[in-house]
């Protein structure tokens, strides 16, 4: 089936080559990091995780959100999602690959990465994160590929694939829950020490992932003849709507608990993010932008008139993306590390090289996504031509 990725329009090839160039640039930047160490990043003794781990956290969410298509389609036989479920699964594959790449570029000693498997350590959440991420990758590869293959051959998918697909539903929840546990169980990090971390992660994921999918759907519709169908878009938009409301609601719950209890080790982080602390306020404009985007998106998505409008919906989706990306891709990590355990403030911002590596990983993910989508859409087109 992969041969479908080998023939395409000029635009397709230009796009692939452009992505390859960006991946190459990112790889070049990574070689510098590999040589000099993580000193080339903006990370520090106090903020010891940065952009890489933040992007990883965000993308785990995008990966998990495939369940929002799989679940209605396979569990509730919601036929409308029939045409795009595969796009969700392939988005999940590309996202998990980016997650794994981000973890790898974040390591101080990447050559020793196998130590995680050679010395399995069940008391470390990172060990479980590795298991669930790799498991999810395999599940989606198998489920996506096998269903697509049988679709192409015009035969019903084999019976056992049902089991894999059902498995993917709790598994998707697990990847984001386990990722939340990476942070949520740490003593002395007040910002992360909250039981609502996993639900918050899931809510923002179920907003961000489907929003990305809607945008991809529009793009695919523009570039190919493939149309997921109006109803599919509308249902997805409703999912985004509920999820972003939950996301903001969970955030407000957090604000109440932290502010009303007024425990300094918990309040100081939110204070740093939203108002600045002791004159340090680098993230303040960002987090307010996120909040404004989230609230605007809610207004646009709740109202059926704007939600169903094909020009406004993509705008709302972009707003949702900005809101959730700033929330997880920037604020989540710095918010936990600033102030540090000695109540000192060291701010974090990524360096140019760090950004280049980040963009390189994103380009690699898009490359995978483009190829997978090319295959999937090729099969769909063939099928429709028959």
């Amino acid at each position, binding site marked *: 089936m992969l041969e479908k990725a080998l023939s395409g329009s000029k635009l397709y090839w230009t796009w692939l080559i452009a992505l390859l160039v960006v991946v190459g640039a990112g790889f070049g930047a990574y070689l510098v990091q590999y040589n*000099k*160490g*993580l*000193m080339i*990043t903006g*990370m*520090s*003794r*106090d903020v*010891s*995780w940065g952009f890489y781990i933040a992007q990883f956290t965000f993308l785990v969410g995008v990966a998990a959100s495939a369940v929002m298509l799989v679940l209605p389609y396979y569990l509730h036989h919601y036929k409308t999602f029939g045409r795009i479920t595969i796009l969700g699964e392939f988005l999940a594959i590309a996202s998990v690959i980016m997650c794994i790449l981000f*973890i790898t570029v*974040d*390591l*101080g*000693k*990447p050559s*020793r*990465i196998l*130590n*995680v498997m*050679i*010395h399995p*350590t069940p*008391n*470390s*959440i*990172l*060990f479980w994160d*590795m298991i669930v991420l790799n498991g999810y990758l395999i599940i989606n590869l198998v489920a996506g590929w096998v269903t697509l293959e049988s679709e192409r051959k015009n035969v019903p998918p084999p019976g056992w694939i049902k089991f894999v697909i059902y498995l993917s539903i709790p598994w998707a929840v697990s990847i984001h829950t386990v990722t939340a546990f*990476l*942070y949520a169980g*740490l*003593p*002395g*990090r007040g910002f992360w020490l909250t039981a609502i971390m996993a639900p918050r992660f899931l809510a923002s994921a179920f907003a961000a992932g489907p929003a990305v999918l809607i945008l991809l759907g529009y793009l695919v519709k523009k570039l190919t003849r493939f149309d997921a169908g109006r109803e599919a878009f509308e249902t997805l938009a409703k999912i985004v709507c509920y999820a972003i409301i939950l996301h903001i609601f969970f955030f407000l719950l957090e604000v109440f608990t932290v502010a009303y209890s007024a*425990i*300094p*080790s918990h309040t100081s982080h939110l204070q740093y993010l939203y108002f600045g602390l002791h004159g340090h306020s680098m993230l303040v404009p960002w987090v307010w932008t996120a909040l404004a985007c989230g609230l605007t998106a809610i207004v646009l998505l709740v109202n059926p008139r704007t939600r169903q409008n094909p020009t406004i919906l993509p705008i709302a989706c972009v707003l949702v993306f900005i809101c959730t990306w700033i929330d997880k891709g920037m604020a989540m990590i710095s918010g*936990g*590390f600033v102030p*540090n*355990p*000695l*109540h*000192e403030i*060291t701010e974090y911002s990524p360096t140019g090289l760090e950004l280049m590596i980040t963009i390189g990983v994103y380009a690699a993910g898009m490359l995978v996504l483009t190829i997978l989508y090319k295959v999937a859409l090729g099969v769909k087109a063939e099928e429709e031509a028959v």
Partner: protein
Amino acid sequence: MGVDRRKFLKLAGVSAALGLGGTAGFQLLKPGSLDAAERMPTPYQMVFPSEQGNSDVTPNPERLKGRRWGMLIDMRKLTPAKAQAAIEACNYYHNVPKIPGKQEIKWIWTAPYPNVFPETENRWADPDIKNAQFITMCNHCNNPPCVRVCPTKATFQREDGVVMMDMHRCIGCRFCMAGCPYGSRSFNFRDPRPFIKKEYPLYPTRTKGVVEKCTFCTERLAVGKLPYCSEASGGAMVFGDVDDAGSELRQLLRKRYSIRRKPNLGTDPQVYYLV
């Protein structure tokens, strides 16, 4: 090393209640087995031969034996000069590099009272204490979150409570840094060697990409000596066995009031401050 009857009964009861059974219970039942376990070299000992260069498995008969090591810092005795001497000794003998800026390496350093004891500071405390610079280092917690989160067991706890780092196993994920509630760990963002002013040849230097911290000078304990900082502190830093009621450390703890950093987190830090 004997376990007295009462202690044994208590520990056996607790471990049975916790369902530990297995090794822990067994070791308590047969104190001899603990000695046997003690004779086993830790991965760290295998990798880092002791100062005298004896890398063989038989332990040095001179070594200091303790069930649970701890450090006591007497803030009435700790002058800035003594603190400085302790810090310099540690840095020199462990080849701790002096890297400027926020990617620095710190094993033992000083910080003001409100930073070392955030949320517990008392505005009206004795100004001598309030304005003092406190020594801070790894607390060698009894229940160390850094060990809990490490995905490769590169951070581990020895039988005697010392929390160690295996520099050859560390993958540099920095989870332990997020896990430590005391900011006691440092990461080698770059090759530290050019930043070592004068290298001490008997202790290994580190590479880029691994985490490091205070080790309670296990290489010194192994040859029957006290940690460098304790030795250099002019009596202000007392090292000892917190499980031994007769140790100097325990006597001081009995006589004077002591505080620990963030005791509410349940990490059970083994660095005590006499105030």
